[in-house]
């Protein structure tokens, strides 16, 4: 129950950040920080998949209601939700069969977090900007790359300051 509360608090914080802070700090329309992607990355793995999917889709719908282009946030966010499990297994082939029970993003080391979060964030941005701009020009590719880096910077800050449990790896 406590984790559900954390998920709600996290989602609210991400939405508030996106609505209040991002318009002030975006870099001349070429790089956009979208740290709300972290919501889909940090949804607990040991939850029932249906419940987890409901939260992921609900958060996407909320973002869609708040920010245009409507429909794209859910679409791109669910890609992260769908790929993250497969992505972890790809880079950790020796994981035990019930790894999801003990796995938490907060237990990752900074390097592991980069390999986990950055490619998924990049894939999210690739889908998002390509569909939103409806082209794959040099400008759009630049926007994808720079926004991914910028977004990951904010994700990493939040991860280091709020999420990471240092005592686990100490």
């Amino acid at each position, binding site marked *: 129950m406590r984790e559900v509360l954390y998920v709600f608090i996290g989602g609210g914080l991400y939405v508030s950040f996106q609505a209040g802070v991002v318009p002030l700090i975006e870099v001349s329309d070429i790089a956009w920080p979208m740290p709300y992607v972290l919501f889909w990355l940090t949804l607990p793995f040991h939850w029932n998949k249906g419940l987890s999917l409901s939260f992921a889709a609900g958060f996407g719908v909320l973002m869609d209601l708040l920010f245009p282009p409507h429909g794209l946030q*859910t679409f791109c966010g669910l890609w992260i939700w769908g790929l993250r499990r497969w992505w972890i297994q790809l880079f950790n082939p020796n994981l035990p069969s019930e790894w999801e029970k003990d796995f938490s993003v907060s237990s990752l080391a900074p390097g592991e977090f980069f390999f986990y979060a950055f490619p998924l964030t990049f894939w999210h941005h690739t889908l998002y900007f390509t569909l939103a701009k409806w082209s794959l020009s040099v400008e759009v590719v630049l926007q994808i790359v720079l926004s991914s880096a910028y977004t990951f910077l904010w994700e990493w800050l939040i991860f280091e300051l709020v999420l990471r449990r240092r005592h686990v790896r100490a």
Partner: protein
Amino acid sequence: MSALSWLRLFLHTPVLWGIIQVLSLYTYIRYTPQVRSYVNRWAFQVSSSFHAFFHWLRRPWIALARVEELEVANAELMEALANLPKVQGPVSYPVGAWGDVSFMKNYKLHPVEVIYQTLHIRENFAILNQGGRAGIYPGLGVLSPKGAVGIIAETTATHSVMYALFHKDVHLSASLPRQQVMGLTSWKEPVLNRLLLEYVPLYVSVSVGDEVWTAPNSILFPAGIRIGQVKKVNTDFTRGFHAIEVATYTDWHALGPLYVLVPLSSAPSP
């Protein structure tokens, strides 16, 4: 599958994931005008390509169907062409009356109108609205757009009397152009639009549907003007001639515009 089975299928996480993805992408495309127009255009191109491909596959069958349609249309056209003199409606020039156009170099067509005509008596005639002042005189032939109608019998300065072919005393020298033989028309039975062609020798083979034209030896008409078609061949062996019933192209009940054939040498100079 029962409804419960379908529900179970939809409750699988990957299926739910796919459904939500489709819905969200649909929402995005539906509410973004530029994307919607692009997707519509793309869908149109794809459907056009499909249509073109299947059309290409069906081409032989389409061609066969087209050939059948054209055959039917061609048959209808041929039938209409065969019945050309029977076509109703206004004709501005008596093209249908010409079996042979060579006579036209010696004649002028003078248009006239019927102001009175008899209805079914033994001496049918019509009064025309032109007379001697227009160069019309007794003995000239009169045409309708479909064929020969009669001859000018009397004239005044302003009007003429035309004896119809359906007059008991009018006989035309006629020919069967296919067989190149001549005969004489008469109106013995008082049936309008029917003539009797006599004096065609028995050795001549006459068929129903053969054309009947005016003959070269006619003193009233030039040769080659259509009169009618053979309707029935009654052979009288005791007389040695065919007695041929002819259905005239001209309908006495619907004469239409008439033309008097005036020889060029006698036409008044303007």
